[in-house]
């Protein structure tokens, strides 16, 4: 189990907003145990058959939820995240894009002090196929199986998952860690979790240009991870000094190039793919069990 399973109970912060409401419906349709929502001032109402509360503390004590997923607008996320952390959530998943990074830094520092795990921000969420989907991932693409996935990119996660599923390779859990420069859970924590997870045989790591997290992950894998890892880095043709969509995807001062990251992984004995579909071929080679489509 990676972070969530079929018994995980979840509340949605920003449940009555446009994004929150539509994705709550999709998560419920997938079978995720969404047990409540929070919108200040709308306590006592209900949406898609689930109760709405004014505060996270109230929602948690009434429902027994341990996880919160946040869909509130960017400037309200620090407040919403702090509320979830202080109410005792074990895991907080922040979907929202465009949070000022100083807010994120404060939120993550707060979470660390309280021992709360944060996924995101600016992420698609996470999924354990067939059991639990938290966030905005398209559930239909994912199937249960032996491949664990950690990714900085949403749509690229879908692309690789689609390729894996088409090839008969399901996924144990996929975690979108987000495209921002400052974020909650990173590669090291999740690589360790997948390494210890009996359901995971192969780990796929999808990185992109910017920062040095992939170089650090490569060194971490060499020392600590015994399961096979396949890595892919997006942005091999990205020019330096330009922000490529994600706030964190920028080559600055010569640091953060795809070349440097791919070399670090190769040096650490990690199989490096150059396109999303090559990831699928590399995973096939690593799987112990024969692939049945």
């Amino acid at each position: 189990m990676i972070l969530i399973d079929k018994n995980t109970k979840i509340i949605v912060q920003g449940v009555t907003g446009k994004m929150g409401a539509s994705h709550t419906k999709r998560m419920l349709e997938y079978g995720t145990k969404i047990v409540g929502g929070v919108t200040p001032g709308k306590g006592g109402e209900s949406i898609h058959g689930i109760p709405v509360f004014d505060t996270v503390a109230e929602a948690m004590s009434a429902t027994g939820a341990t996880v919160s997923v946040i869909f509130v607008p960017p400037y309200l996320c620090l407040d919403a995240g702090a509320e979830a952390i202080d109410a005792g959530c074990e895991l907080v998943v922040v979907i929202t894009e465009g949070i000022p990074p100083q807010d994120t830094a404060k939120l993550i520092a707060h979470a660390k002090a309280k021992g709360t795990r944060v996924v995101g921000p600016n992420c698609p969420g996470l999924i354990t196929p067939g059991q639990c989907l938290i966030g905005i991932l398209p559930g239909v693409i994912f199937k249960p199986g032996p491949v664990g996935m950690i990714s900085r990119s949403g749509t690229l996660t879908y692309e690789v998952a689609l390729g894996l599923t088409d090839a008969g390779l399901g996924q144990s859990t996929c975690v979108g860690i987000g495209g921002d420069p400052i974020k909650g859970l990173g590669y090291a924590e999740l690589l360790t979790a997948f390494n210890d997870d009996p359901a995971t045989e192969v780990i796929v790591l999808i990185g992109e240009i910017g920062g040095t997290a992939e170089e650090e992950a490569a060194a971490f894998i060499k020392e600590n991870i015994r399961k096979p890892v396949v890595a892919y880095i997006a942005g091999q043709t990205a020019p330096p000094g330009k922000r490529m969509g994600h706030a964190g995807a920028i080559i600055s001062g010569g640091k953060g190039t795809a070349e440097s990251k791919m070399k670090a992984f190769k040096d650490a004995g990690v199989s490096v793919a150059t396109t999303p579909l090559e990831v699928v071929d590399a995973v096939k080679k690593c799987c112990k069990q024969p692939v049945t489509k």
Partner: protein
Amino acid sequence: MNLYEYEAKRIFAEYGITTSPGVRITKPEELRKIHFGYPLTLKCQVLVGGRGKAGGIKFAKDLKEGESLAAQLLALEIKGCKTESLLIEPKASIKRELYLAVTLDRGRGCPIFIGSAEGGIEIESSENVITVPVPGKFQPYIARDLAKKLGFSGALFNKIADCATKLYKLFEELDLDLAEINPLVITEGDDVLALDGKIIVNDDAIGRQKRFTGWQEKHLTDMSVREGRAKLAGLNLVELDGNIGIICNGAGLTMATMDMVKKFGGRPANFLDAGGGSDAEKTLFALEIVNENPDIEVILLNILGGITACDEVAKALVEFRKKHPNRKMSVRLRGNNQDVAAKMLADSGLKLIADVEAAVKDAVAQANSKTPVGVK
């Protein structure tokens, strides 16, 4: 958003950091009204680095020389950026130069002070860099730590720590990505003075920093005209020198698509992330702005719908085809409502390619051939 030096210095002054008494001019004759004596420093106001090396800073010994230098500098372009105005300052008396900045450290996930006992340098290539992270709430002792590490004592120790405290305050209150004083000067009279300054405002915070409302339009000079227009429309466009226009949803997928184009023998003309959940109007804008690039041979649209609805994209494609029926295109459209989208596009002459690599290869083949192979 990068600010001009004169704007950064006004903000420094507001927060109590001493700056030179500067005057901004846009015409050489405005020099006649300047009350401080010669020699003067004339500095081009541009939003790119490397100004000094490019000849953007000059010294004038009198008004006559000043006017001729001003005319020359106002016409100067540095790395493709036009000079916006000139900042005129008295020549400073410099005993020592330092470097001082606050930025966000993505590795540590918190703000960090960067200092150096040498100023006027490129900090990336300096060996004497001192860093002091600010992992929790800022307290002035952290600035004193920095002053100590920079080797100060006595009255100057307090002045440097005070300047760093003020710099941190404005960094935090104005949601900056960077607040930099380079060089921070110690004058012959042992005063601390910000001789040059750089401020980068975090783009995502501009919406709540009301003083910067409407500033973005005149601070886009490190971008092409089309990149700037895309930014103002909320889209991320980065132009390159190839001939295959690329539009995708999601930053990672867009980068991966560029990489595949290159790998399969093509040349990407741009990166354009139309974003998750883009509607028909935004998608049409994306198609039009990419199509305006005269170097484009083919547009490759690669949409994998998670939250993006394929029928919204199809609606935009139908509109676009009406206006530009001859534009070569390769379209991959998969995900949410893809069957509805396929029906809508049945009469458009576009074939939809389900496989991502097949779509990229189709675009490369079209870009490299004279006849459109993507059209039925």
